[in-house]
């Protein structure tokens, strides 16, 4: 088992394709998307709304090296406030380290 970083980003659905590109540019090309149902933050409550997709959010999950994680977080940081993102990082152990960057 080797240590890697687990980076999670909660993001509005319409912004997801752009996030995937940004991650790729930062060297994070493998990821998994998990659904979210709703929540509450500084800007009030939201619920998933498939009608227009405008208010739905998705959890982007990537396991990667510390270096790539740092590069990704750095590029994302200036966008966190303007785009209402939630960014989480933690440690995780994986088998087959090379598969995770």
């Amino acid at each position: 088992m080797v240590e890697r970083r687990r980076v999670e980003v909660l993001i509005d659905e319409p912004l997801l394709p752009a996030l995937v590109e940004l991650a790729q540019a930062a060297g994070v090309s493998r990821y998994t998307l998990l659904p979210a149902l709703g929540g509450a933050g500084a800007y009030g409550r939201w619920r998933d709304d498939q009608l227009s997709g405008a208010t739905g959010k998705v959890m982007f999950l990537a396991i990667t090296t510390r270096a790539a994680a740092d590069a990704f977080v750095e590029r994302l940081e200036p966008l966190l406030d303007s785009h209402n993102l939630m960014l989480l990082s933690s440690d995780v152990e994986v088998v087959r380290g090379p598969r995770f960057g």
Partner: protein
Amino acid sequence: MTALDALTQPVVLFFLLGALAAFARSDLAVPEAVAKGLSLYLMMAIGLRGGAEVAHFGASPQMGLAMAAGIGLSFLLPLPVFFLLRAAARLDRTNAAAVAAHYGSVSVVTFATGSELLRQHGLPAAGYMVAVLAVMETPAIITGLALARAGRRGRDELAPRGGLLHETFLNGSVVLLLGSFLIGMLAGDHGLAPIRPVYDGLFRGLLCLFLLDMGLIAARRLMDGRALTARTVAFAILIPIVQGALGVALGTALGLGPGTSALLGILAGSASYIAVPAVMRLALPVADPGLYLGMSLAVTFPFNLTLGIPCYIWIAERLGA
């Protein structure tokens, strides 16, 4: 048509049932996937019905006039709304522009309900109005984004990849509505006959089920709605009345007949809550969805459904007489 006539139609009653259930904090809920499926069905059915009518009656010069009027309204209506919201509601530039785009664009369900009520009232509108509905969805978005001067801020890292025009014109609802309209025109009466039980027979019944959900959604948004103030609520009622009257007057001036003019007014007075919010979330992420969805979905939509539509029809009948 009086407001009471409208209020005793099942479509409107189901909307009220949903709204009451939400206000009473019932746990009644329509699964999101089902609501989305219903909205796809409605757009497909609306497109096919319009296309079938145009195939049946042929295109007319009035269709060209009405489409030009619709495009013009959608492009221009956001301007006065924007300046009004800046000046009187004291919204910042971005939020005012985002809201203005919603009011220039249109609501598919308001259109569908209006068409039904007109038919019930013995004043059916022309089939080509579906094409007008489709072309009115997007111009307002362009005006809104220009007002927000989205370009000035420079391309941020999460800006849409294909450019904003791409997102605007290829929004799913625009594509489905226009595509179904064209399929309806291509297939014609004969080709459509086997699928008529679905796109025509089920239309009004499924619209009821969808409006039940819209009632739940609108009322819950109103209750969550920290972004709304007395002032923005007032504007969300005032704007559609003025825009709707303008639309009716324009239609009458163009000689579209009372039913069709009323429907142009309904379109002008309606505000988008499907196509525009999705683009705004992308293009103006700083704008507050609580504000624009609150105004268009939680105030204007219920207002139009219950009072606005009968009012535009009433104006059309007076002006047309």
